[in-house]
């Protein structure tokens, strides 16, 4: 530009120029001439001033050079695009607000192909993932991966990813170089990693340590770190660096992507990076740049060992075989359990059990008193048609069955007890004489009974007579001291005693027994022995006389005097009980001498 090397015109020059159209006077003409002499480029200056002062002229001139300026700016870097991007965005927004139709018309030619391409890509991905799924599901490799997923506790998708992955940028961090604080970070989908703030701090600490250790200075930077299967790629910038955590072997292109991200972030956020004070919110705008670095590549799908229909068929065959084996084993176990149950059942003998023509066939012996085999079959889960069975009746020698059969045949009264051991049927308790005479001999006809023992079985009639005798022997008449007459209250018991004796005589007669009743008169421990013996005899006589007077046969009674009480009785109530008359009944078979009793 000439303005740099030539001094500008005096300020009043333009004023003179503006007055130019009005110049009419000779003095002015002289002045112009003088100016022309002094400044030979006067007209050029006047023209320059006019071009600068008039916006229309300036706009026209700028329009002439603008395309070339833009072209040159674009060749120098992305600065112009970044600068005018907000203007273009605003312009598009304004245009859409004003008339959406125009923009739709404008982009219509590209919308169709874009949508088609998107749908094609989505379908291709879907088919690819379906292929992968089928491939890995039915193949041996897929089974191994499923086992590995179960063993390691990872998801199947994660295991597939690990095995098919060539490389994947799992996480990209933007870290401030000055203090190691995290400015922004992005993570690949479905990955959970440790706290990025701590990771960024540790990365910075490691960087600092390495730099200090090797005296590398601020310019020396650790570019790569290997941690197990992970590699950390670091790309530094003046104020911040980008760290990409990569699984697998990434291509060198990734470095270029990281360099590009660092350069663009520094270009766009230079001031914020320089003045960073801990607030990372403004760096949210850097996410798209970092996300562009989340690259990944998976291995090409290998040729399948077998076609998937064949694989499916194989799986079906294996499934059918498995089902058949399962059903067979389950049925065999069910049959074994049923046979075991039958064999453990008393009164059931399994002679033959087999499977013939798809049906179970069973034959054996069955006691009528044993559990019903049809019921046992139903309990074991078999329908009536599942088993063809033939049972022959037999009598089991099991004591429980022998007893049941004996009870059914002999119908013993409730007072009779039956026991069976080693084929010997034993009776005890009591039973009517007629039953004993008729049924005991029948016992030998009961299947399973080899001998009968009935010594402990007593006639019921004798037992009844003995019970009456025992009732009478509970009776007792009491007397006052030194008295042998019954007072009123004792006398009132006479009718009850008479009834007891008559019942006893009647029962004894049914049992074929004679009755004699010994009446014993007692005294207390006081008094003289001979006197007491006389008093006891009188008391017994008083009672017998009263009973005879009430209608009983005197022949039934015999008197007796109790021996004197040897030990003194201190208690007056016990002493009162001593002054008494009691009975003792003797039962003897009719015709036996009276001395023999029951």
């Amino acid at each position, binding site marked *: 530009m000439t303005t740099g090397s030539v001094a500008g015109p005096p300020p009043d020059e333009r004023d003179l120029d503006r007055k130019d159209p009005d110049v009419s006077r000779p003095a002015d003409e002289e002045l112009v001439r003088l100016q022309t002499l002094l400044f030979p480029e006067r007209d050029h200056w006047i023209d320059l001033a006019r071009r600068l002062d008039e916006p229309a002229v300036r706009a026209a001139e700028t329009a002439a050079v603008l395309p070339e300026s833009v072209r040159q700016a674009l060749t120098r870097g992305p600065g112009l695009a970044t600068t005018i991007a907000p203007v273009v965005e605003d312009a598009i927004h304004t245009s859409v607000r004003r008339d959406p139709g125009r923009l739709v018309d404008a982009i219509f030619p590209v919308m169709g192909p874009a949508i088609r391409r998107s749908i094609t890509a989505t379908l291709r991905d879907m088919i690819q993932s379906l292929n992968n799924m089928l491939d890995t599901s039915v193949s041996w490799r897929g089974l191994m991966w499923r086992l590995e997923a179960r063993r390691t506790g990872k998801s199947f998708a994660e295991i597939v990813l690990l095995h098919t992955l060539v490389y994947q940028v799992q996480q990209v961090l933007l870290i401030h170089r000055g*203090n*190691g604080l995290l400015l922004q970070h992005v993570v690949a989908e479905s990955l959970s990693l440790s706290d990025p703030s701590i990771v960024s701090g540790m990365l910075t600490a490691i960087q600092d340590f390495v730099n200090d250790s090797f005296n590398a200075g601020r310019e020396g930077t650790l570019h790569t770190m290997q941690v197990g299967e992970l590699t950390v790629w670091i790309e530094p910038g003046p104020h911040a660096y980008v760290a990409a955590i990569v699984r697998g072997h990434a291509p060198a292109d990734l470095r270029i992507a990281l360099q590009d991200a660092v350069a663009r972030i520094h270009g766009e956020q230079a001031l914020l990076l320089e003045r960073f004070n801990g*607030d990372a919110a403004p760096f949210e705008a850097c996410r798209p740049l970092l996300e562009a670095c989340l690259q990944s590549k998976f291995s090409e799908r290998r040729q399948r060992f077998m076609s998937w229909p064949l694989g499916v068929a194989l799986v079906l065959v294996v499934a059918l075989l498995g089902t058949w084996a399962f059903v067979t084993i389950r049925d065999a176990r069910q049959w074994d359990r049923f046979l075991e149950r039958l064999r453990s059942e008393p009164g059931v003998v399994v002679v033959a059990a087999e499977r013939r023509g798809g049906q179970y066939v069973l034959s054996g012996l069955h006691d009528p008193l044993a559990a019903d085999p049809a019921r046992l079959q139903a309990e074991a889960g078999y329908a009536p048609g599942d088993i063809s069975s033939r049972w022959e009746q037999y009598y089991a020698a099991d004591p429980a069955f022998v007893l049941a059969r004996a009870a059914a045949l002999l119908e013993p009264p409730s007072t009779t007890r039956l026991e069976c051991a080693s084929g010997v049927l034993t009776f005890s308790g009591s039973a009517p004489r007629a039953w004993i005479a008729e049924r005991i001999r029948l016992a030998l006809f009961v299947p399973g009974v080899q001998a009968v023992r009935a010594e402990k079985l007593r006639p019921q009639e004798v037992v009844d007579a003995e019970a009456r005798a025992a009732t009478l022997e509970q009776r007792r008449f009491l007397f006052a001291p030194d008295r042998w007459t019954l007072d009123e209250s004792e006398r009132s018991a006479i009718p009850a005693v008479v009834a007891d004796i008559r019942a006893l005589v009647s029962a004894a007669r049914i049992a074929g027994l004679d009755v004699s009743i010994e009446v014993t008169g007692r005294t207390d421990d006081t008094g003289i022995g001979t006197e007491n013996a006389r008093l006891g005899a009188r008391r017994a006589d008083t009672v017998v006389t009263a009973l005879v007077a009430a209608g009983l046969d005197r022949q039934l009674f015999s008197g007796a005097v109790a021996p004197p009480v040897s030990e003194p009785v201190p208690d007056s109530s016990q002493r009162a009980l001593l002054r008494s008359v009691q009975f003792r009944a003797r039962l003897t078979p009719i015709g036996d001498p009276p001395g023999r009793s029951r």
Partner: protein
Amino acid sequence: MTQAKVCMLGAFAAGKTSLVSRYVRNEYSEKYLTTVGVRIERKVVRSADHELDLVLWDLHGEDEFQRVRHSYLRGAAGCLFVVDGTRGPTLDTALRMQAEAVTTLGPIPCVFAINKADLRASWALEEPDLDLLTARGLSVILTSAKTSQGVEEAFAALVDGIAKTHAHG
């Protein structure tokens, strides 16, 4: 949320890692594990006035053989100096490190945690020593990672100082 880098500094075995463990995870262990290099921990502190994402650089302790690298201090918004109350020389170490930190970082919030307050009976430090710190205008808080005494207060004082710095910055 604003982030702030905080450096834990002090002599070896002063209890820096124990204080961080107590503060971040409310844990304490009698077992002594020396810190090699640096451990990074993180805690988000919320209060009515501010919300701060603290990134704690738990640096290895200093002794006669090993000095803390100044590069670790770079960009720190505040420092917590840990002194072992039962060992007098740890105070000198902390004071020297504080002077170095101020030289490296400029005037930043600093808090002195006089640790192992649960062993007060066997302390080597005395009141005049602590008064000396207070006289220098330093925040001094007695702490015990074992009993939690003063731990929250020490970090709260540092967070407060950092928040004020940010407000003025």
